[in-house]
């Protein structure tokens, strides 16, 4: 049975069409794998009834010969996506008991294409975190371990449950969302592929908002081809999201030729960080060489405002979040605190929000409220917006100079131990996003793919950043890198 769950989307699609396997079989295998993987805490809410029903429908559709690529593919769905009638809590107590009466656009498109939902996946609360430790469900666990050390490692965040589930073969692929690196960092930590498309590619309708100008959904898959297939099903114009782009969606998979001869790849010097592990530097250099060997021109480039990206991000994202999370007030849905006699509306707000939000969310709401407040707005929020414009211009300049894609490390380290950062300054945790936030600030597509392992056997990822709306080209470059890197390692099953 494990063979079935380790299938990739493309393999399963072909096998389903040939009749070698049914969606029902794939789905049962996944459900069994999920049941046996409680230790990973990746799935926080299982939906076997929905899965079996969808699988049966998919099998009928496949039989009828009317089956899109995603038809019959069992997926995990990040808890940030609103799924109709199914708990959708953004891993927060404040949304305790909330079951939306609507289905997000992205999941609607996936299910319309015949995909099967196995359940909801763990994540950092409201997607705020880089280790999955802010989840109200407790953290998901990385299936990878350091050599023989059985210390539990983080799967990364915020899409840690998605990363853990895909990496451990509990599902064929999963949805993720990425506001500052929440798809790419966990993908890198768990040896899988994750792409954040251009801002506006995927509809945000029905995805619980963290920072609206940065949030994007994307697929988390076992390889680049799967990312291409699944992304195509997820994206497209949605009139219900004003920031969704009215652009045609190309056949991304058809663009995976592996031919990158003559492409220009930029290596940004500002991404060499002090104190970055040597292994990351080495991997980056290896990636550079692999792309060069594949026929790309490698150029050293400068993105001069990179060092301001993290501070700007940690102003803009909390500012938007402080406003986006104001709706969780206990009035209409989710958690409402039990009140004492004489308590009024202010006490209801205060108690509800104090009980419902975890510490990291509270911290960001306070930071966001502060940077938007009268007297500080120009010094923080407005300045951060200006920085954002400059960062975007950095990228525009190199693209205008002929660069097709930019190669960087995905993360400054391999997966770290759960609890390791507990007492650390929160800024240290924020540093996880140092290579990824620039991409969100500039609204660009970025992909993380596994490219090697460190001395302890943990996967390491590289990131490629592409031109806006050119995910197809970016995926093809990633495909070439993937072919060259030949990463096939899998975590040993211990759960």
């Amino acid at each position, binding site marked *: 049975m494990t063979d079935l769950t380790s299938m990739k989307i493309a393999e399963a699609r072909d096998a389903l069409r040939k009749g070698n396997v049914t969606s029902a079989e794939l789905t049962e295998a996944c459900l069994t794998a999920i049941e046996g993987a409680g230790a990973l805490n990746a799935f926080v809410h299982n939906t076997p009834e929905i899965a079996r029903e969808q699988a049966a429908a998919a099998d009928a559709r496949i039989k009828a010969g009317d089956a899109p690529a995603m038809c019959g593919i069992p997926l995990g769905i990040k808890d940030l*996506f*609103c799924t109709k009638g199914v708990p*959708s809590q*953004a891993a927060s107590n404040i*949304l305790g008991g*909330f079951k*939306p*009466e*609507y289905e*997000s656009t992205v999941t609607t498109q996936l299910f319309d294409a015949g995909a099967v939902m196995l359940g909801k996946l763990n994540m950092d609360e409201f997607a705020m975190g880089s280790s999955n430790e802010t989840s109200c469900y407790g953290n998901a666990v990385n299936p990878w371990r350091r050599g023989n050390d059985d210390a539990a490692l983080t799967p990364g965040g915020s899409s840690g449950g998605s990363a853990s589930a895909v990496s451990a073969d509990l599902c064929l692929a999963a949805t993720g969302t990425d506001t500052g690196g929440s798809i790419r960092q966990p993908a890198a930590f768990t040896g899988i592929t994750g792409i954040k498309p251009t801002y506006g590619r995927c509809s*945000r*309708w*029905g*995805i*619980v*908002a963290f*920072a*609206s*100008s940065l949030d994007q959904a994307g697929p988390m898959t076992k390889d680049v081809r799967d990312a291409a297939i699944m992304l195509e099903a997820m994206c497209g114009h949605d*009139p*219900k*999201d*004003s*920031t969704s782009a009215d652009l045609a969606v190309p056949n991304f998979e058809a663009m995976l030729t592996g031919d990158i001869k003559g492409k220009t790849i930029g290596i940004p010097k500002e991404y060499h960080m002090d104190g970055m592990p040597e292994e990351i530097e080495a991997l980056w250099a290896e990636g550079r060489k692999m792309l060069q060997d594949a026929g790309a021109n490698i150029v050293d480039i400068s993105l001069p405002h990179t060092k301001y990206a993290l501070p700007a991000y940690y102003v803009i994202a909390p*500012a*938007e979040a*402080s*406003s986006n*999370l*104001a*709706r969780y*007030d206990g*009035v*209409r*849905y989710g958690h409402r605190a039990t009140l004492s006699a004489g308590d009024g*509306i202010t006490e209801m*707000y205060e108690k509800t929000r104090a009980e419902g939000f975890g510490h990291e969310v509270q911290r960001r709401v306070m930071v966001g*409220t502060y940077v*938007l*407040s*009268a007297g500080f*707005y120009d010094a923080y*929020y407005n300045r951060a917006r200006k920085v954002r414009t400059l960062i975007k211009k950095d990228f525009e300049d190199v693209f205008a100079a002929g660069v097709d894609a930019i190669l960087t490390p995905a993360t400054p380290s391999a997966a770290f131990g759960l609890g390791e950062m507990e007492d650390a300054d929160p800024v240290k945790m924020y540093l996880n996003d140092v290579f990824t936030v620039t991409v969100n600030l500039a609204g660009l597509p970025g992909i993380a793919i596994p490219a090697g392992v460190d001395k302890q056997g943990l996967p390491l990822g590289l990131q490629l950043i592409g031109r806006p709306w050119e995910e197809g080209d970016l995926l093809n470059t990633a495909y070439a890198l993937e072919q060259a890197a030949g990463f096939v390692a899998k975590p040993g099953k211990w759960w």
Partner: protein
Amino acid sequence: MLDHLSFESPKPKLISGAKHDWELVIGMEVHAQVASKAKLFSGASTQFGAEPNSNVAFVDSAMPGMLPVINEYCIEQAVRTGLGLKAEINLKSAFDRKNYFYPDLPQGYQISQLYHPLVGEGEVIVDMEPGVARLVRIERIHVEQDAGKSVHDMDPNMSFVDLNRTGVALMEIVSRPDIRGPEEAAAYLAKLRQILRYLGTCDGNMQNGNMRADVNVSVCRPGQYEKYQETQDFSHLGTRCEIKNMNSMRFIQMAIDYEAKRQIAILEAGGKIDQETRLYDADKNETRSMRSKEEAHDYRYFPDPDLLPLEIEQAWVDDIAASLPELPDEKKARFVKDFGLSEYDADVLTAEVVNASYFEEVAGAAGDGKLAANWVINELFGRLKKEDHSIEESPVSPTQLAGIIKLIKSDAISGKIAKDLFEIVYTEGGDPEVIVEERGMKQVTDTGAIEAAVDEIIAANPAQVEKAKQNPKLAGWFVGQVMKATGGKANPKAVNELVSKKLADLG
């Protein structure tokens, strides 16, 4: 094109304090509900009076992950309003979030336009009396969503929330501090309401809260306002207080009066006005402090990241401009010019566009504007008012009224008979000409018939004839007798002439 009639500015209202004279300076922020079937950012209905929480889309109740999408029609209406107020239209504007917590504000923020409003500077001519009007400058109009309604009086322990109004589109029309008295403030709101109703962009129903005003009031010594006008420096003016949420013209005047006296008393006692928000209590006729400047909310405005900046095209604006109806000032000027009406009559007739249209139909069909104006204002409006009917409910159509007027003009009936005829048409209906014919109401202009009647009266009243010989003024008595004898149908002019002639002949 004659846009409006020439006018002079009224004198500012002077208020005598215990020590000095004072003047008022008033600016208003008017919230006008956009006439639209759907809300600003959702497809939910805006129908008034529906069951609580029945006109609520997911985005209105701020369900997680729901996103606003601009209703283009609301933007069109706001642009139309801007054009009607002769204002600049900003082709690029943007929406901002105004953050505060309140149970009837589900998102925890109101989507509004602080930094880049849709409409810029415009103006309103506020008529005070014929030839006298105040030009009030408009600073800006921005588009924003309304909040819901909190209900506190249904349960001793709980409050309830109705989200039907949540997300309904409002235009906030912000004036400069150009209003100089309570009457002007009320007249300004009335004029805005009139223009918006002409444009069809707001129904102006104040009872339903579809038009509400925040009134900023300050007082200054005579001469200070002129300094402000020269420099646009607000330091020449007094500290203002904002009276929130007024929806009655009468209460606005009373609140301003009260507030002016309150401020003057403080200042004359050597005190200082605190900038604050106040509420007017109509029962006690007083304003009370709601919150001071220090307690003011920090709204943490920032651009709404869910909405891209709003970009509209000049061609679209031009199309809307081309479809604009004739507005009250232009219509009034045209009525004065084309129909020779007094400014007063033109004012009355243009107050509501339906009245003006009715009048124009009558005037056109009757071929006499002045007569049409008299009949519409005096007879028709008077009669409708008696039964509390609107002009839409008038049983007399413009064609019928024009028919009556035409009969007067052709001397077929006298003015007196015309009033009887109007009453018949009003109560029974029918074609005036046919009624006059069938009921023999036609005026007798046949001199032969009138002469016979005059001769008859003269022959029957020799004593009166003798008296009339001494006193020619008694001729009137004979005229009256003839009119009576002919049932009022004789042409009075012809009777007069004949009576004078016959009496003279006898003498």
